[in-house]
């Protein structure tokens, strides 16, 4: 609590009266949010850190130490999960941002057909990831599934997309790209709408071709949007593992195990809370570092623009 008992009375009085110090009014108005943030954001970070630093040994009193982190970094499965998360992030962010930008550029002009095509691309955003997983379970079904059935007509043999360690992560990535590209396209469309038409006209008069205009005008001015969408995509890549939970359970041979799924497994199945807490702390630190880095780059991009 940011205030003691006396402070609390000040605050209550502040709400009733109009003439009261701004900080007391602010504290009263922020309190409802602050209570929930404290309980479900700040305290959990702290408690996970404390839990991660506590070593539980069978039959002994718990002691402080870095044992959980040592175990975590020695665990091959964690290394695999981190590697898969990185692959998953790269494999989803790059293609879906590129595709989203291409769709936005192609569909930026208004018109009935464009509106319809945009709607078709955005629809996957509205369904739960588990529903997407259900649909793709059939699409990727070996042999009789949608993909193999149609590939067979082209003379291509069946594959076990989700059952083979070589293709499972790729399949999971494809589902995420399908689901999120339309969302990112919306941001790019909004960003493109903010670029004055005169810039393009002026460049055209100067004889700049479409690619020069894209590279010299559109992309630099889209910088802030790009940075913003990148952060959203990064968060999505690290937090959206619903399809891993329902489709592959991290397998086969851990080929789709990711950091968040690893944490889920350690706490739900192995009941190894120390290890789960250590992995949580590592992923929180990594997430904050990556987001700060992206924000820093984003800020530089804005300076560059102005």
């Amino acid at each position, binding site marked *: 609590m940011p205030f003691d008992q006396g402070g609390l009375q000040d605050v209550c009085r502040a*709400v009733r009266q*109009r003439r009261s110090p701004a900080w007391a*009014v*602010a504290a009263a*108005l*922020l309190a*409802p*949010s602050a209570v*929930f*943030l404290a*309980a*479900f*954001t700040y*305290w*959990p*970070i702290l*408690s996970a850190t404390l839990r991660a630093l506590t070593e539980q040994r069978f039959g002994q009193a718990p002691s402080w130490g870095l044992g959980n982190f040592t175990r975590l970094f020695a665990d091959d499965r964690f290394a695999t999960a981190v590697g898969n998360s990185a692959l998953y992030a790269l494999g989803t962010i790059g293609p879906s941002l590129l595709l989203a930008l291409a*769709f936005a550029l*192609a569909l930026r002009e208004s018109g009935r057909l464009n509106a319809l*095509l945009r709607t*078709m*691309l*955005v*629809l*996957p955003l*509205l*369904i*739960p990831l*588990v*529903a*997407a*997983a*259900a*649909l793709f*379970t*059939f*699409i990727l079904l070996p042999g*009789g*599934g949608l993909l193999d059935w149609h590939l067979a007509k082209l003379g291509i043999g069946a594959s076990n997309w989700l059952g083979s360690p070589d293709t499972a992560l790729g399949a999971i990535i494809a589902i995420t790209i*399908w689901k999120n*590209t*339309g969302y990112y396209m*919306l941001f790019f*469309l909004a960003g493109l709408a903010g670029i004055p038409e005169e810039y393009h006209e002026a460049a055209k008069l100067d004889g700049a071709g*479409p690619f020069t205009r894209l590279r010299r005008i559109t992309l630099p001015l889209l910088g802030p*949007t790009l940075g*913003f969408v990148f952060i959203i995509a990064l968060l999505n890549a*690290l*937090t959206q593992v*619903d399809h891993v*939970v*329902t489709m592959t359970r991290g397998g086969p041979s851990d080929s789709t195990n990711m950091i*968040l799924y690893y944490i*889920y497994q350690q*706490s739900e199945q192995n009941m190894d*809370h120390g290890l789960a*807490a250590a992995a*949580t702390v590592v992923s*929180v630190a990594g997430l904050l570092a990556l*987001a700060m880095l992206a924000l820093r780059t984003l800020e530089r991009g804005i300076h560059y623009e102005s």
Partner: protein
Amino acid sequence: MKANRAPVRLLVCAAALLWLVPFAWMAVAALRPQVAGALDAASLLPTGPFTLANFAEAWRSGRFPVWYLNTVFVCGGILAIQCVTVSLAGYAFARLRFPGSNWVFTAFLLQLLLPPVVLIVPNLEMITRLGLYDSLGGIMAPYCASAFGVFLMRQTFRSIPRDFEDAAQVDGATRLQAIRHVLLPLAAPGLAAFAIVSVTAHWNEFLWPLMVVSSPRNQVLTVGLASFTASAESGADWGLMAAGTMLVAGPLLLGFLAFQRRFVSSLVFTGLK
């Protein structure tokens, strides 16, 4: 310039059609009568006869009424509490000058980078300690404060002139009355945008409700669907699975198609203002 536009358009149309394929299959398969061992389950051609038998079967074998009620209750409850918390905090950040406000605001925004699902293990511990394990309240609790909502309401309030609330307060309204009866009606578009984003997010959420709830009567649609599809899959009952998926995804899809412009502007409203 005009000449090379046609192939691009064709390519984009093809891509959009490809994007629609999973939905097309869902609709076709859900309406197709079930034939044991049918080999054309993957066909996208809507050949008749059509039937609603899959939906009836899904409704009977799943616990859809319970899942719907729970999901509506969870989404509605979260939204109701959020409306209070984000309006009050958004007002404080938009209108009041107090020492350290930038720091407090940054601390609030931390939640944007750390959604509750990242802190799933300590959050679950907290929920258990509060006695909310295996309850709908447990699903809702971590979302009662929303950094995104606070940010959005701050921006919205800032775009409204102060004169209106000042006038109300001069007329003797308290600050809370001025917020409730003067400012909030003016901020309705912002609140509506937030509502759309919030309901979409929590209708579709899976991992957190999966971990918090254990008994069947507290399950929400997504968690129910996961077990429903698992059993349909093991029986190779694809029409049933498609129908169940449609029942879960349908309401939001219909809402989107009906209020498309609203949805799109709400979804883009984030951070771009």
